[in-house]
């Protein structure tokens, strides 16, 4: 029976029974309705983005619906600087992801597999950059980068050109920095249920530590590493606030959008946004499908 017909049948009943029915109805549906409404609320801006990528705005700003058009989809990069900005975004995200995933995975391995002094402190230290507002991360990075060009002792030690003027280097440094903590947390969560007996079995069978790592440990923690790399890549390609502080004259896609929105907002922004969204969702869907296919026999407990 549908919700509507249930509610419809409430009319014309004795008052007592009616209020009981109403109570039963609310008990059953209220949480579900709230949940569905919240999910719709979360997806609404994404939906608006997709719809407005098919808009042909009347003025310079793609804020009001005018008419349906696929022009922007046919010329997605047809704006000065947009193609360069997108290429920079992808390059930065790729490099930062590789570096952050390696550094973060090493930390996660140490934190899960070894007990050592200072472990709790390290956990907290890893957490703090995630809890720091992005504006503080960006502002402090800008401070140090400028200081290498203007303040002693940095000025005489550090050769100019590495950190200042700001550019690709400084964006990548910043992105690796804020990604490391996320990689550590993600990989750590995946390898917590790791069965150490498998490694010991390999060692008993004569494998040395190096072989054991590559033949046993790495394949088992690979899903966690892939998940962390995907997260790092999506955080990096979307980052605006920190990048805005550390990019100087170089544009990434979000920085380019921020710059253009003062004068105009072409539907191409929505097209690129939609494309990134669809690719990311596709990658996650593929990753999930791939893992569920190959992961059935894996002894690792994913939690």
């Amino acid at each position, binding site marked *: 029976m549908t919700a509507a017909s249930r509610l419809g049948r409430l009319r014309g009943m004795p008052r007592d029974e009616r209020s009981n029915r109403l109570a039963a109805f609310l008990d059953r549906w209220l949480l579900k309705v*709230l949940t569905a409404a919240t*999910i719709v609320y979360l997806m609404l801006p994404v939906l608006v983005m997709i719809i407005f990528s098919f808009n042909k705005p009347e003025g310079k700003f793609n804020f009001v619906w005018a008419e349906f058009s696929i022009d922007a989809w046919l010329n997605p990069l047809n704006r000065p600087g947009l193609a360069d900005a997108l290429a920079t975004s992808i390059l930065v995200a790729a490099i930062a992801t590789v570096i952050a995933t390696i550094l973060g995975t090493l930390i996660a391995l140490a934190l899960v597999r070894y007990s050592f002094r200072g472990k709790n402190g390290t956990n*907290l230290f890893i957490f703090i950059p995630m809890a720091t507002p992005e504006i503080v991360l960006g502002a402090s990075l800008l401070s*140090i980068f400028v*200081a290498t060009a203007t303040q002693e002792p940095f000025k005489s030690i550090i050769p100019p050109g590495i950190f200042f003027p700001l550019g690709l280097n400084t964006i990548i440094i910043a992105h690796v920095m804020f990604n490391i903590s996320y990689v550590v947390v993600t990989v750590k969560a995946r390898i917590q249920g790791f069965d150490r007996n498998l490694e010991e079995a390999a060692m008993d069978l004569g494998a040395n530590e190096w072989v054991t790592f590559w033949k046993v440990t790495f394949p088992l923690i690979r899903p966690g590493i892939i998940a962390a790399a995907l997260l790092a890549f999506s955080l990096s390609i979307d980052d605006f606030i920190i990048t805005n502080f550390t990019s100087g004259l170089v544009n990434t896609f979000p920085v380019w959008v921020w710059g253009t*929105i003062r004068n105009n907002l072409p539907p191409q922004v929505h097209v690129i946004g939609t494309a990134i969204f669809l690719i990311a969702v596709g990658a996650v869907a593929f990753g999930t499908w791939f893992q569920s296919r190959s992961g059935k026999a894996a002894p690792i407990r994913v939690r």
Partner: protein
Amino acid sequence: MRKTLRSRRAIPYLLMAPGLLWLLLFFVVPNLQMLLFSLSEGTLRTGFTTPPQVWDWQNFTGGIDQFSNNFRNSIVYGGLATILCFLIGYPLAYSIAFKGGRWKSLLLFMVIAPFFTSFLIRTISWKIILGNDGPLLALVRDVLHVVPANFSILGTPLAVVGGLTYQFLPFMVLPLYISIDKVDRRLIEAAQDLYAGPWRRGGAIVGGIAGALLLIALQLGLGYTSATGEDATITGILVGMVIGAVVGGVIGGYLVSQSFIRVTFPLSLPGVFAASILTFIPAIGDYVNAQLLGSPTTQMVGNVIQGRFLAQNDYPIAAALAFILMAGILLSIALYARLLGTDELTGGTA
């Protein structure tokens, strides 16, 4: 033998060294440099005079003084957004954890899916939705006539708080979900065996009072009415209170059971605090929502910091403001860690 033991002990430190070094150089050192700038004088053009030549505490006291409005906006908007995130996020997290069933993974995925769109574009979407020619006002103003014809949302605190609530909702839902999911179901069954049933009257009363208070807080915080000024309209406050009380009462009476209020909710409280911290922190530091959805009077501390750093090159004041933010955050994390431990925040100590 002893030598290999010692070298084994060094392994975790060696594994962590490169990553921790990166965080040291590009997280700790920059913050120290920012602290140094905050005590300095001068601008990028004139050059900086730094400690120990000067110790310019004026940047801190003067900064708070000069930008007290922005600090107030940050705290009020960030606080309201956190409360709204909690009210929207808790039922969702509870629903996913307890009633998710086979939809659990998909629902969790939909909570994080907005992150696959650029933060800026999501905010632009809200600018479209809330705009004067947008779909929301077309509905409530032109079709339903519940607001006057000159009513607008963009450029008001309501738009900023709405944007913040949306952006940081997943920051609330995910930690809440983890902590609610950990609640031992057997405890709830035990409570039900001991005659814990629905909590109609109590839930309705508590929910009604909470709803009324929330509506008052929203009206005051969003500036639709002021506590003392001449524009304090009693009817407006009363109507808001009644609406809040009715909605809160229905939700409290029908959603909240005795076993929830006595077992599930207390057990999830550490998660509630952790999630609130993780939502409040980015919310008070944000400037994109205030910039795109607000007006000059709704600017938050973040707007001042980014303007001073990137447009005016006035580093000392901006660094002081950023450092005040950072200090407040470190303080709240330290307080939390002291009271409730670090597990819930850092995702376990293993």
